[in-house]
């Protein structure tokens, strides 16, 4: 019985941890700030959803730990949820006794109103009870079979996503008549997503997801029974469809969506470069923004019609030069750090990023680089009279160059050089003993990775039309590193997925911007816990994860190393 009591203690303490998380997001102001964004009118907003998700998480987590029957699991969820609610209730009580605002500026009456369901300190029992109910719901989710949980989850997720982005979707679906208007009027009212619309979305997605689940094996087997040529044709068709969707995105989404997409594209370019260094070759680089800056400055200097322009070239002529310059910068950058390994490499590269930024900013180089004033009047690219004047047009440049760079990266990965990089990542000494010239291979990794980022910088210069040193700060390097970790080290699709999640999503949810790095940190920790290989793991890793362990597999060398001089 003792151990039993211990396990219940763990459930409660686990619930309290989630409660602490709820208190934390409340006190940093997230709940209130995100509360501005209503998801379903009169039902729930983003801030409350966050608290709800934390409660659900507490119940889910508690139910999954330890055995026992369904009832025990539900009871665990109840307890954990109540503990989470108790955390918030404690905040309520504390807030009604002492004035917390002296210390926590976000502990406002509005916050307490959200937490207490508008009842103040009298709402304490209600908060605990609500926590318990939510906890039971979270626990119940673990008990449902996959065939029910999957569609249900899809329905809820779709409703939340559509509610979150209702403003954007309404803009996309604007117009007086036609299909777009019909869809808009069916789901939305001008102010947002009403409960009726939410229900419609939920039911439609639920049914569609359930149908797809039951039909998927049939469709799969139908496809696998077609002759190979038809299969190829179908795959090509799917690909063309995907490309078509991507191509119409800027036109359909408007200026704001295009802006976000271009940003995602630029981060994808940098991510592909850093992925080559860190993911393929295992060379940690915290100064990666330097190459982005070098690409941007090269294009700026070569094309600008302003004070600092040196050549007045066209964008298209300047891009290859920018690529070569950042490639050479990569070689030069690699030279002094050839013999540095591991943690020290991170610190050395950190320095490089700062050096480039400070050089651009310095007064000594001001006559050439413009110092903090930057380089202005960088013209837009154009082809035969068509000007890539804004994000909606420049999107296509980023798209084409990302596709091209990803293609190059894929070819390199599957080549002799790619294998040498991976061998070096695994074991530098043995790689050298395999006949790999570490110096060449390392410099190529820095050079090619740098050139990829230089491409991004070149587009960045044209996009903004001006370049300032402060655009190239350390945070960009860290963003890029974070996105390849979240996407999956060494995985090319992972880079795109990572930048959509870590760059695109925060831009679309502007309320998040104050909490961006808080969310980054949390996302990274959760990733490492839940999906250490990333959202879209590299092919070899995924292949292994899906495959059953070979019979009698031994993962570690069983012989103790003998001491040998």
């Amino acid at each position, binding site marked *: 019985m003792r151990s039993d009591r211990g396990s219940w203690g763990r459930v409660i303490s686990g619930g309290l941890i989630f409660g602490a998380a709820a208190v934390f997001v409340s006190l940093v102001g997230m709940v209130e700030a995100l509360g501005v964004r209503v998801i379903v009118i009169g039902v729930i907003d983003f801030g409350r959803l966050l608290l709800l998700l934390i409660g659900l998480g507490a119940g889910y987590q508690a139910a999954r730990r330890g055995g026992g029957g369904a009832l025990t699991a539900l009871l665990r969820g109840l307890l954990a949820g109540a503990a989470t609610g108790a955390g918030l209730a404690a905040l309520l009580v504390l807030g009604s006794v002492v004035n917390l605002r002296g210390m926590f500026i976000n502990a406002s009456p509005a916050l307490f109103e959200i937490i207490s369901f508008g009842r103040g300190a009298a709402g304490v029992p209600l908060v605990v009870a609500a926590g318990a109910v939510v906890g039971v719901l979270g626990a119940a989710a673990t008990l449902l079979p996959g065939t029910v949980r999957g569609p249900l989850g899809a329905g809820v997720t779709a409703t939340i996503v559509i509610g979150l982005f209702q403003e954007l979707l309404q803009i996309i679906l604007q117009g007086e008549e036609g299909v777009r208007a019909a869809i808009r009027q069916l789901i939305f009212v001008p102010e947002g997503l009403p409960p009726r619309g939410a229900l419609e979305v939920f039911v439609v997605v639920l049914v569609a997801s359930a149908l797809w689940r039951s039909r998927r094996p049939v469709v799969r087997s139908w496809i696998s029974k077609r002759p190979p040529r038809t299969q190829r044709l179908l795959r090509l068709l799917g690909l063309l469809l995907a490309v078509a969707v991507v191509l119409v995105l800027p036109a359909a989404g408007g200026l704001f969506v295009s802006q976000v997409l271009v940003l995602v594209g630029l981060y994808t370019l940098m991510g592909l470069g850093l992925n080559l260094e860190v993911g393929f070759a295992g060379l940690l680089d915290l100064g990666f923004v330097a190459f982005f800056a070098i690409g941007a400055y090269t294009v700026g200097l070569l094309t600008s019609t302003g004070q600092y322009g040196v050549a007045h070239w066209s964008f298209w002529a300047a891009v290859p030069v920018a690529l070569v310059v950042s490639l050479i910068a990569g070689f030069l950058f690699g030279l002094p750090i050839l013999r540095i390994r591991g943690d020290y490499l991170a610190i050395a590269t950190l320095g490089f990023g700062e050096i480039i930024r400070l050089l651009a900013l310095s007064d000594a180089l001001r006559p050439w680089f413009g110092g903090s004033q930057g380089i202005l009047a960088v013209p837009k690219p154009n082809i035969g009279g068509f000007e890539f004047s804004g994000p909606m047009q420049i999107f296509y440049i980023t798209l084409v160059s990302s596709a091209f760079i990803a293609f190059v990266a894929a070819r390199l990965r599957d080549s002799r*050089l790619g294998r040498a990089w991976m061998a070096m990542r695994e074991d530098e000494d043995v790689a050298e003993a395999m006949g790999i010239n570490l110096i060449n291979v390392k410099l190529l990794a820095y050079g090619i990775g740098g050139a990829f980022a230089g491409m991004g910088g070149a587009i960045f210069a044209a996009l903004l039309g001006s370049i300032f040193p402060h655009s190239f700060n350390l945070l960009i390097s860290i963003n890029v590193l974070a996105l390849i970790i979240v996407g999956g080290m060494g995985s090319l699709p992972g880079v795109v997925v990572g930048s959509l999640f870590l760059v695109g999503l925060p831009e679309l949810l502007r309320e998040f911007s104050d909490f961006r790095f808080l969310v980054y940190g949390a996302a990274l920790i959760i990733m490492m816990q839940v999906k250490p290989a990333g959202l879209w793991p590299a092919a070899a890793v995924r292949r292994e994860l899906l495959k059953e362990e070979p019979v009698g597999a031994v993962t570690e060398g069983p012989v103790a190393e003998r001491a040998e001089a």
Partner: protein
Amino acid sequence: MGILASQQLTKRFGGLIALSELDLDVAERSIHSIIGPNGAGKTTYFNCVTGFYRAEEGRTFFNTQPIDTLTPDKITQLGIARTYQNIRLFANMTCLENILVGMHPHLKSSWMGAILRTPATRQDEAQAHEEAIRLLQFVGQRGKGDYLARNLPYGEQRRLEVARALASRPKLLLLDEPTAGMNPRESMDTMAFIRRLRDELGITILLIEHNMRVVMGISEIITVLDFGQKIAEGTPDQVRNDPRVIEAYLGTRRGVAGVGA
């Protein structure tokens, strides 16, 4: 002079003399073993030959060419390959990729060729894949090319390491305790396998081994090291009966008696 020859080789780590004026000569197409107690300097010698360590004094020649000042990659390109005492595969790469990395020195494709996928590169890669698959079959791992190296059972990891070493088409293969951790039956298989390497591929074998049944069964010549010095050399029969070898392995007569008293 044989295929590998070291003269007066000395390697120190601070005050410790790991190798002391070692003379060693490995005849071409022989199976030559180095034995000795723990800490005798056997692996240190391998590390000196392959360029991991640089000996303070003395010289080493491969095919009469001095290799003391070369980096490990250059030495491998000349035709020396090795395996490691504690297996050092590229754990997160597949078996096939491990072998392909081993082929690195004699593949020609450049990075530009790889991006453009020129006909020459394609042909090079296709041949490399074919050869890698042949090597996998040769070490009895047909069909395991897609497994990650770390997921192979221990014995197969050892064999994959040999396959990776063979991929560089070596003339001399250094094996560091190839039967470590194996049961008697696996050890016998490995012995037969090593003999095949020499007989079928004509590779000279230099191996470090603790298992005396293997050493005596396979070696044509044995060098015995103790405290970094060569204390004996000869055929298995000569070495087995050498008083200094018995002394190094079992202690002096007095020492043994001392323990008993």
